[in-house]
């Protein structure tokens, strides 16, 4: 079973976002970058499938600036075997252009499963997995919380508006990972050392001209300062009064 996992480098979720000088990107100074948390679920799932089947190869694909390689090595330390870095110094902000570049690179790869995170926690579009699958003309199921593979088919569970769904798909197919799929492992020191020696190919990303432009980036409007109504249950009547008459929230 060959599995490709697409991972994106994003600011750590703890980051307090600071808008950079041009006003259309964040200021990267002091920001720690991580594998987008949903992509980490995808990497973990790939490793679990490989461990269960006892064979297969896991390839990591990441499009991003030079230090995308740092998070690729993190995926290697978790258990991935090799990978390709599509270098993009421009930090593309158009998901379609990124999806097209990823799809172009994937056309030359052999895989049964193609895994994504449900969303990269930077631009939060939640689209690239479905876009790439369509560009490659393979089926896709998004936001899965369970994945079983057998006999050239995958059976997955996902949350939907109706409740939970069980979907069966012919392979090769693409999936996007939702929280709940698994708990990603922490790599051991020895695995981090081994990860440094695993093969990593670098290629320029084939990006088309973006079809959208980010005109500006803003901070969210500040919330007006709140108030402490009081201490303990004695202050409950005052709170209910405020909720009813001031906030009109009840």
């Amino acid at each position, binding site marked *: 079973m060959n599995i490709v996992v697409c991972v994106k480098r994003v600011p750590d*979720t703890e*980051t*307090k976002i600071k*808008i950079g000088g041009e006003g259309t990107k*964040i200021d990267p100074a002091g920001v720690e970058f991580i594998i987008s948390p949903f992509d980490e679920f995808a990497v973990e799932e790939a490793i679990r499938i490989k461990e269960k089947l006892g064979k297969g190869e896991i390839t990591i694909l990441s499009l991003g600036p030079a230090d995308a390689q740092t998070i690729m090595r993190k995926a290697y330390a978790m258990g991935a075997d090799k990978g390709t870095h599509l270098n993009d110094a421009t930090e593309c902000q*158009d998901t*379609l252009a990124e*999806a097209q570049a990823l799809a172009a690179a994937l056309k030359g790869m052999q895989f049964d499963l193609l895994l994504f995170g449900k969303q990269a*926690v930077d*631009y*939060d*579009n*939640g*689209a690239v*997995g*479905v*876009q790439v699958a369509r560009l490659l003309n393979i*089926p*896709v*199921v*998004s936001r899965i919380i369970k994945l079983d593979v057998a006999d050239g088919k995958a*059976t997955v569970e996902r*949350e*939907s*508006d*109706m*409740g*939970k*769904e*069980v*979907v069966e*798909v*012919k392979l090769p*197919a693409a999936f996007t990972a939702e*929280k709940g799929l698994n*708990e990603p492992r922490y790599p051991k020191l020895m695995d981090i050392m081994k990860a440094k020696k695993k093969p990593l190919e670098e290629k320029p990303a084939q990006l088309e*001209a973006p*079809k*959208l*432009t*980010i005109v500006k*980036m803003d901070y*969210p409007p500040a*919330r007006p*300062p*709140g*108030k*402490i*109504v009081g*201490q*303990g249950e004695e202050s*409950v009547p005052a*709170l*209910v009064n*405020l*909720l*009813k008459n001031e*906030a009109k*929230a*009840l």
Partner: protein
Amino acid sequence: MGNNVLIFAEQMGGKFRSVAYEAICQGKKMAQGLGGKAIAVAIGGGVEAVAKDLGQYGADKVIVVDNAKLKDFTVDAYGKAFSEVVSKNDPAVVLLAATFQGKDLGGYASAALGAPLSSDCTEWASQDGGIQVKRPIYAGKAYVTVKFNSQPAVISLRPKVFLPDAPDASKSAEVEKIDLALSDDDFRSVVKEIITKTAGKIDVTEADIIVSGGRGLKGPEGFVVLEELAGLLGAAVGASRTVVDEGWRSHSDQIGQTGKVVSPKLYIACGISGAIQHLAGMRTSKCIVAINKDPEAPIFSTADYGIVGDLFKVVPALTAEIKKTIG
């Protein structure tokens, strides 16, 4: 170049969802600015009967793809049907709700048509003969304003941000039924089973009020006090990630950067410290109440109203007081 707006009218079990009306009302306004028409697209098995009602919300026309094979949503089959309708109509804008279905379909249509995509938009404006949008990024820690350089633009709207106008019963839309050839390739993914959610359980993304609990609840049994308050208010019960990771509540209840992003009328955070990843999921709530025993808890700086105290005393008192004042 077209100037129409094509709107996906999302349905569930043969009934349109409120997000469909939200999208159609905004789509109509966009179409007015562009000098075009608002065309709704209804896809499913057995949707034809209700299609013309979409006119009451502003659709000038409804295109119906009604096919028994499309009873259950899969992105592969719905995406194929939707993209074909889009490409035949050459719209300026393709509009969807940023729901599970809408996000999937938006991605599919964007790739199928080579069209730029912006998900989860919270504002839009007519600009230079086109549409410009504003959307949250980094889980709402910042916003971007996006301009499209190519037509159509695929835009999904965050649910519950744009409220639909009241329906106008005097209006009805022209309905066009079309047949599309669907091949086996469009059904490589098949829904085998739908496990419907517990009756009466309200999803956090749909609730007007959320009562949410964190590690301060001490264990799954602690949530009984929140369930009582939620039951009284017709609210959903949300949870912090810690609680979900401990297995006290289900993943679908998690609020935050790796959970659901919600903006209810009222969010009551109980025993939640207010970590940046949690705030990202609920900071756009209209009114936030925090109940926490630690006066230094960061949640208090985001809350409109706070009570410092033991939630096991404060929450039952709150339930009792609300029962007394609003019955």
